[in-house]
């Protein structure tokens, strides 16, 4: 099978998965005995007003009718309107998503920058003290709750030492560049606003470290394991016996093979960073998708919850697909099947 057929097949499969997710999220959110209108209107509202607004939003219709309405809209690319923000969900997602992409991507960079070197050091110094230190470091990453680490870092590096800025994406005094992509770094670069650029980078540092550190643990461990496995194989022995330097053996021969499982983990981690940024976004007052979906969830804003879920699912599946395609580049022996 060639690459194109493979990708097509995977895309069709993906469509099914996404449809399944739509069905599940729709029915789950409509079956739970909560009342979005009541939540928005608050405890004071009279039953008449609740009924009136419920009719306006079409929540008085039978569930299957609402579902068909939703599917029809969805086929036109319309995710419906958020009850909470009174704006199209699509518009909201496009508004909040860039902040999360920016955070998750830089966290990914941090995770890779920490994880891969640490994994390599661990593997070549197996069972010696660098390995132990790296294991402890990785263990700390997974076992320290994100919000705890975040608050500690804010306390030490922002409050005590003043080395880093406080929560938020920009300092209040810094003029924000005009919104083009929503990615603050890119927008300030486009506007040539270097004050905003450096300020935004500075604000990005702590949250991406917190989030990236958490993600680096699995990358470290998987790199170490994969590298150890590869280093024990015959072709490495052959390379060594040919008299190649250790450095060439490691970087040219071993690492390239060892990075395959690491790539998978990175792909999966990116997906989970996107959705798992919720706590980090809360601690660092980061206006991203995680915060949007929690807010939507708490006020039973169905359509927004479903839209956000769908978006995350889409990215998850795409990340998976890309990882699978990358495999082929890293290891020609892998066939699409």
């Amino acid at each position, binding site marked *: 099978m060639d690459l194109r057929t493979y990708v097509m097949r995977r895309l069709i499969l993906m469509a099914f998965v996404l449809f399944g997710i739509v069905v599940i999220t729709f029915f789950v959110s409509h079956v739970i*005995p*909560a*009342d979005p209108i009541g*939540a*928005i*209107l*608050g*405890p*004071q*509202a*009279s*039953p008449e*007003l*609740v009924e*009136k607004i419920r009719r306006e939003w079409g929540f008085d219709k039978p569930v299957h009718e609402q579902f068909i309405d939703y599917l029809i809209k969805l086929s036109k690319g319309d995710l419906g309107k958020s009850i909470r*923000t*009174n704006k199209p969900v699509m518009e*909201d997602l496009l508004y*909040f998503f860039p902040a999360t992409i920016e955070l998750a991507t830089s966290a990914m960079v941090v995770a890779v920058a920490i994880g891969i070197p640490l994994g390599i*050091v661990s593997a070549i110094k197996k069972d010696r*003290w*660098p390995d132990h*230190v*790296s294991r*402890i*470091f990785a*263990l*700390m990453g997974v*076992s*320290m*709750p994100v*919000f*705890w680490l975040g*608050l*500690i870092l*804010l*306390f*030490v590096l*922002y*409050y*005590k030492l*003043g080395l880093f800025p*406080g*929560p*938020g*994406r920009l300092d*209040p*005094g810094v003029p924000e560049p005009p919104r083009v992509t929503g990615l603050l770094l890119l927008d300030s670069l486009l506007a040539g606003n270097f004050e905003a650029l450096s300020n935004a980078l500075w604000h990005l540092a702590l949250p991406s470290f917190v989030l990236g550190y958490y993600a680096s643990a699995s990358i470290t461990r998987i790199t170490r394991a994969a590298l150890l496995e590869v280093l024990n194989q015959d072709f490495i022995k052959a390379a060594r016996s040919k008299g190649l330097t250790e450095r060439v053996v490691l970087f040219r021969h071993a690492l390239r093979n060892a990075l395959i499982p690491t790539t998978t983990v990175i792909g999966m981690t990116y997906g989970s960073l996107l959705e798992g940024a919720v706590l980090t976004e*809360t*601690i*660092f*007052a980061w*206006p*991203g998708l995680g*915060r*949007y979906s929690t*807010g939507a969830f*708490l*006020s*039973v804003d169905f359509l927004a919850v479903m839209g956000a879920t769908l978006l995350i699912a889409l990215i998850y599946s795409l990340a998976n697909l890309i990882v699978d395609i990358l495999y082929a580049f890293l290891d020609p022996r892998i066939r699409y099947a």
Partner: protein
Amino acid sequence: MTARDLALPLILLIVGLAIGYFIAPPGKGVTTTVTTTVTVTGAPPAVTPTVTTTPAPEMRTPADTLIIAMDTSDAVSLDPARAYEFTSCFVTNQLYDKLVDFELPDLINVKPEVAERWEYSPDGLVWTFYIRKGIKFASGNPLTADDVVYSLQRVIKLKQTAYSVIEPFLKSPEQIEKVDDYTVRIRLNKTVAPSFFLSVLTFTTSSIVDSKVVEAHAKNGDMGSEWLTDHSAGSGPFVLERWDRESQFVLRANPNYWKTGQPILKTVIIKHVPEPTDQLLLIQKGDADVVIDLTADQVKQVEKQPGVKVVRVERFQNRYIGMNVAVKPLDKEEVRDAIRYCIDYDSIVNDILKGAAIKWQTVVPKGLLGANPKTPYYRNVTLAKQLLAKAGYPDGFEIELTTAPTYPAIDIATKIQADLAECGIRVKINQMTASMMYEKYRKQGLQLVLAQWGSDYPDPDSNAMAFANYRIRQLAWRNSWYDDYAADLAEKASAEMDLKRREEMYLTLTDYILDHGPYAMLYQEVAQQVIRDYVKNWLPDPTFFVLDLSKVSKVVGS
């Protein structure tokens, strides 16, 4: 490669030591190393940064910019016809003027704002408002009777969230009419007490919008509602520059502001900072001038620090236990009394709320007309057991208490469970999210409920009606308490023209509810806002929407 091998672990060790040094509690010495930090697994320890004695810092934020850090996640819309949450009402109030307004700290006598005077017919049905001449909107358009008529009719036509505030007496747009360019007549469809009607007019629902600007942005007959969600068209001290959802509101001074020329502050930034610990760090550091949502412990902690001040005020927000009278044995007055005598009110106020509440047992909160300071209920297990025996339940009974799983509700529910257990009442706590809870509550589907009630506008009616009058299907109805005496009295009081007599009626009514009502009122909330001490004129506001930021300034010293 040995040098490089060493570098990374060394850096890690140094970072670890640094972290250990800073988080080590004072006095313990700096023996904390990486390994101690590693043991942090499972339940995370609460981060309680210790306050060090630092010299009063200078102002870190610009002197003409006020930075408020608070949780703004409740905000839905800044359209006055929809704004109904704390944040949106607070912001909206800075953008618009109303016919009349309160001026802190007096929340009983309304003051003229857009209307320079008014008169009403003896039966209280027909009101005439005379509009002040020379008021300009931020756009430069003059404010006339047309704008007033348009704004109030708009609320009735759109029938959005905030409409419920005026719904009882303004049901059709025709009730509001223009007499001439600076006179507006309003006909109410039932008599309401003048103080009550005026009080409702101070709520942000009655904000006067610039009809020309709003109409220019109208789409599909929405009277500009979508546009007004995050734009402003008012004559208030500030203009909304931007609202970045989940991030911040930026307000700029209105250069046309008619009251004072223009406000003292050039800019107000309301930052969305949902995490109270972040707010604590921001105010301590001086990167925020005002923070709103610190926990009681955090307030205690920050209070000792130089450079900050705590502003306290009893909010119009009460927490109570509702007892559904349709559920046996809550139908018996002795049983309801027994429950009221089981609860340890003092412990709830002192140990759980720690200063963020006062004991208050009547339904009209302190600070409003007719507030009744009686607190006859206290913890008395013997008396409670006698009452239960008299009612025929010497061995107690089982009952379900529903509450939202949020702080401090869950702590209070647990405390009440323990209190009632000593009287033999076995409580099962049932947690559900607020939206689910209110859905069931509205359908009279709960047994005991731990809930909150806040007044919409500074008038006793908002509480008296809800707690006493089952006909309007609010709290009395939700607890199946069909008491005609209470309902009639609440209705009569809302229509009483004489202020003194009106006050007496509320005192009678609150006494009656205290004895016969299906509630155990637990406490009235105390707002504790922390400000930097250079912030001047930040007045304690029980409602959070009367506070006028045009008077606030930042001055070091004095």
